[in-house]
């Protein structure tokens, strides 16, 4: 089930909210209620995914129990992490690996075509963080139903944010969170609507042009290719952050505050800054559970070694997004961007704010072409069009996109710029509200 589907908005959400707020009267344990609804939510798309996620939850529960009961059992931690990565590789990357082996060694291994279970990428990272927390004794007591809910909680299940157990669990247990809270409800509702608008009006509106442009990429000229790349950059932001808003809004109506995942990323002044504003919970995971442990394990860590680790971490982040070389390149481009930023910092080089913003935004915009392209060749073709200056000759092609029937697109395109660069964001709305609560 997706958040912007009618089933979710008009049936599922009202139903869970009703049960949730009346759970006291019908004497249902809220944890079981949320688990049940989350299972329905998850299996709506395809019930065949359900056994795998339940299998993963049961195994991981037992592994984490082992980690909690033993003292710093490194072997068990290693086995647990490998188990989760192994499942992810089998279901998400096996065909990609086979394809590459075939083209490298001229073999003919048939592809397996396993269905990719929804949410598995997010669940894998969330569980790995959880296992490390158990190993570190940040978590010292665990009930099966609490762990089950932590993994399957429907607002964050499909596309994040990636949450930590010690952040979520106290909220689920808090007694005050089990009764109707009008301000949480109304703020949640507003955030949900903001997300819905981002997704259905902006992301979907831009996608019409983006889909057309990427399909006919050979016909692009200078202007249309720039419009195409900007359109996709905004589409991706509205799509993803809209989805996160809908998750945050839904969770807030259930009195659960999800962590911030976006913070006006296109206002960033560097690529480092960008990853502190774009998919924040992913960056946090990469820093805390890959970068820091790895850097710590190396003796005499120096600048060069840190830069190497950062590059590899972003390579992993890239391929995590999908089994394709375009995502590997996407990760590498960002890793390289971060390294360049660190070199600038190290040698105290700085640019003025406008120039920094301009460079950063364009760099992100180029990198997103790789995110969307079906193959590397297509990405480079589009980049080539963006830097071909035969604009006057091919103006006719550009004009095709500005037919009156595309007035909607033009309005959305212009509004996207204004919203991303000038407006405050939905996280600001939430923070301002909770800050005002604290003062009262």
């Amino acid at each position, binding site marked *: 089930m997706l958040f912007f589907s009618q089933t979710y908005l008009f049936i599922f959400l009202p139903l869970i909210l009703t049960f949730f707020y009346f759970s006291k009267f019908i004497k249902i344990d809220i944890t079981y209620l949320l688990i049940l609804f989350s299972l329905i939510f998850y299996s709506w798309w395809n019930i065949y995914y359900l056994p795998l996620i339940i299998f993963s939850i049961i195994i991981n529960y037992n592994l984490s129990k082992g980690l909690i009961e033993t003292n710093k059992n490194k072997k068990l931690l290693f086995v647990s992490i490998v188990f989760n990565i192994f499942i992810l590789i089998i279901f998400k990357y096996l065909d990609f690996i086979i394809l590459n082996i075939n083209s490298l060694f001229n073999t003919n291994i048939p592809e397996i075509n396993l269905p990719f279970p929804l949410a598995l990428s997010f669940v894998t990272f969330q569980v790995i963080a959880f296992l490390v*927390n158990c190993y*570190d*004794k940040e978590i010292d007591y665990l009930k099966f139903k609490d762990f089950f809910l932590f993994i399957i909680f429907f607002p964050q299940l499909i596309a994040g944010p990636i949450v930590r157990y010690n952040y979520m669990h106290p909220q689920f247990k808090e007694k005050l969170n089990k009764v109707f809270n009008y301000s949480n409800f109304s703020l949640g509702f507003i955030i949900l609507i903001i997300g819905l608008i981002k997704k259905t009006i902006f992301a979907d509106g831009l996608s019409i042009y983006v889909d057309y442009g990427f399909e006919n990429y050979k016909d692009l000229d200078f202007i249309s290719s720039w419009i195409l790349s900007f359109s996709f950059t905004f589409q991706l932001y509205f799509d993803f952050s809209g989805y996160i808003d809908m998750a945050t809004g839904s969770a807030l109506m259930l009195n659960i505050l999800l962590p911030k995942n976006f913070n006006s990323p296109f206002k960033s002044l560097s690529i480092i800054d960008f990853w502190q504003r774009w998919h924040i919970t992913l960056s946090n995971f990469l*820093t805390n*559970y890959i970068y820091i442990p790895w*850097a710590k394990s190396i003796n005499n*860590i120096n600048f060069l070694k*840190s830069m190497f680790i950062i590059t590899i971490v972003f390579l992993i982040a890239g391929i995590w997004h999908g089994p394709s070389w375009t995502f590997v390149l996407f990760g590498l481009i960002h890793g390289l961007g971060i390294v360049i930023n660190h070199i600038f910092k190290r040698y105290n080089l700085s640019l003025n704010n406008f120039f920094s913003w301009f460079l950063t935004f364009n760099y992100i915009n180029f990198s997103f072409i790789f995110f969307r392209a079906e193959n590397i060749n297509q990405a480079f073709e589009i980049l080539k069009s963006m830097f071909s200056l035969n604009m006057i000759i091919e103006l006719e092609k550009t004009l095709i996109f500005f037919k009156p029937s595309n007035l909607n697109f033009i309005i959305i395109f212009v509004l996207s710029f204004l919203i991303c660069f000038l407006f405050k964001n939905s996280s600001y709305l939430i923070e301002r509200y909770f800050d005002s609560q604290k003062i009262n």
Partner: protein
Amino acid sequence: MPSKEEIKKLISQEINVKQSEIKDNHTSKDIAKWDSLAHLRIMLALEKKFDVKINTSKMSELDSIPKILKFFDK
């Protein structure tokens, strides 16, 4: 337990900033040089100097002077 000044001194050495520029309530966001790379150096230095073990998952949380002090207070 280390004092506030000891911690500020250690941070100032690790990130090459004058100790007087680091205020009691400062967080990593207030000091430009206290970035993610510097943060790891600070954490490793804290571990070494005060002979403590800071969990990986704890490290990112200790991003301000008050939080570091609170950590040692336990």
